[in-house]
């Protein structure tokens, strides 16, 4: 039973982690917590659903189109909603993201209705393997682990070795200095939003295939992902993936022993981490000196 709890906890934790990476990418670049993250992911998943259900394209083609759409959606939201804000404060920008969240949820409800939809990915929860006696792992869980590992590696390489990645990091560290050095910071913001939206969309497709697809389906996973991001550290991409895994494990073990307390574990974690280590478990703790 313990082995099964570990597998399930890590699998759902990897999903939280993927979603949380999206939160972190935006936060790293612009220090804004994007509360529309879940709904951006939901909307992109609906696009995939639409392509699969109405145009009957093969999944991989639908996935590529959805990924492109997700990037464009993220960039559009940054361009159309956040960029026009005059002398924005962090709170003002957060409120704008809340507005975008409502808008996307309303649009999805209008276009696809509130009724739950069935969403399937090739890595099915139904196909299972038993590598160790008593521990069953599904294709879905294997898919989450593999995709999370690949994306993690790609992001690491992107931020470490590409000019754009370095420029994005520079933008986060000092916007004005980055500007002086020739970095087009607005583009970096757009790119960060696009990248974040892409990560969210991939995570949301895993969530939808495990549950159902409807306009509200990402509200709860987003909160869990946010908890994972706080746990891992809002500035650390590997940290949030580990944070997601930890959260998945904590929730599953806690939920097994005290199921009635399971829903609040994530929020207890946020409070505890904020009290003990405000920057998260894996992020460097900076103190601004005046």
């Amino acid at each position, binding site marked *: 039973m313990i082995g099964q709890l570990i597998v399930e906890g890590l699998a759902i934790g990897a999903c939280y982690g993927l979603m949380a990476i999206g939160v972190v990418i935006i936060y790293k670049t612009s220090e804004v917590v994007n509360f529309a993250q879940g709904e951006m992911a939901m909307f992109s998943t609906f696009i995939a659903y639409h392509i699969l259900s109405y145009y009957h394209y093969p999944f991989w083609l639908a996935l590529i189109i959805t990924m492109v759409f997700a990037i464009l959606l993220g960039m559009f939201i940054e361009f159309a909603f956040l960029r026009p804000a005059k002398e924005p404060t962090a709170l003002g920008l957060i409120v704008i993201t809340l507005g975008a969240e409502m808008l996307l949820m309303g649009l999805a409800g209008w276009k696809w209705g509130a009724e739950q939809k069935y969403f399937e990915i090739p890595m099915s929860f139904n196909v299972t393997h038993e590598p160790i006696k008593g521990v069953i792992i599904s294709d*879905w869980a294997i898919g989450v682990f593999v995709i999370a590992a690949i994306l993690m590696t790609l992001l690491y390489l992107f931020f470490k070795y590409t000019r754009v990645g370095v420029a994005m990091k520079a933008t986060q560290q000092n916007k004005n200095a980055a500007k002086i050095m020739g970095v087009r910071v607005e583009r970096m913001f757009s790119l960060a939003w696009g990248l974040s939206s892409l990560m969210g969309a991939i995570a949301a497709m895993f969530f939808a295939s495990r549950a159902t697809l409807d306009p509200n389906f990402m509200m*709860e996973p987003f909160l869990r992902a946010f908890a994972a991001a706080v746990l891992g550290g809002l500035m650390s991409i590997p940290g949030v993936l580990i944070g997601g895994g930890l959260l998945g494990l904590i929730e599953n073990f806690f939920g097994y022993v005290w199921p009635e307390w399971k829903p609040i574990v994530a929020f207890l974690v946020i409070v505890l981490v904020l009290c003990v280590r405000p920057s998260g478990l894996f992020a460097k703790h900076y103190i601004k000196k005046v």
Partner: protein
Amino acid sequence: MKIKRTLFAVALAIVCIFVLAVDASAGRPGFDKKEIRIAQWGPQTGPAAPWGSVARGSAIPFNLVNEEGGIHGRKIKYFIRDDQYNPAQTKAVVKELVERKGIFAFVGGVGGACGMAVKDYLAKNKVILFSPSTAITEYVVPTQKYLFATYPLYQDEGSIITKYLVEKMGFKKIGFFYQNDAYGKNGLEGCKQRLATYGMKLVAEIPVEPGEKDLASQMLKFKKSGAEAVILWVNPTTAVISLKTCATIGYKPQWVSSNTLSDYPLMYKISGGLFEGVITGAFAPPPDSDDPLLTKYREAAKRMVPEERWGTFFMAGILFAEPLVEALKRVGPNLSTEACLKELNSLKDFKGIGPVVNFNENCHQGTDSVQIQKCGPGASYILLQDWTPNDLATWKKK
């Protein structure tokens, strides 16, 4: 300064006109010589929109009555208002209808919190609330003069389902997975009450919050408990996640559920076929039943609203409205709210497409019966047990 004062005076006058206009129309009777005005709130948009078909279903018996010339010369004028499953919206739309249109009775009305938000207001305005589309004990205990319910209480349904599982299917180990609110807890109470009569206990009872997406630990706990049957008192999404999670962990109990999951085509579709074999309670007969009255409604719906899916919740709207139509017919030409209440209170063994309905002055819960059905191949309905009352129903003794 003068302009400001003038503007203020004009604004004040407008406000006064609106306030007076609303007051003047408050308490407007819900009928006249030509029509009886009946209304229903229900989520036509928003997260609970799939249940909006209840309100649209109620239009069928009203339209049929109107096609036959109305009730003693009066046509039924039926209003549907979208409250988006939001009690604040429900309050607004109900107030608007009562005070602007003048409503004789509200029928159906999805949402426990929505109904609770307006039931006292309706009683104060002497408007009948007939058969709200939720089972809430507070609706019927204590008995309220203007409120009548036909939706079977979850406690009764939990008890009847458990009896079926133990006596007909011979299950010894039963688990219960319930939404952590009044809906889930009432079902759980009924189940435990029934099990106690056999000297049995649940092997696992696990609560769940409606939005939870990861149910692995809960399902593993059921698996560990050895439950042969797991009763679900949850929403459709939670049910689907439960089924999918158990498919992953290799656990195959007999799934059983309350009537809230009895829309098999929907459940079958969103679970990718995993819903096949699930047993549920049901407040409506199978949609493809060949009952003559049901066939009449089905044909009427096909003619009147061909775009509408003929499903359980659409039918629920019909069966919620039927006893009210019957009472209005029995009142005769001298219609009044009191006369209608008198007829409702004396309704005995009324049989529409739902269970037999009985009311009296001391008891406004019209039924304690449910059917037991099973989701067959391709989301077909298999009737396992016809209308069955709950011999342990506590409200009958109150």
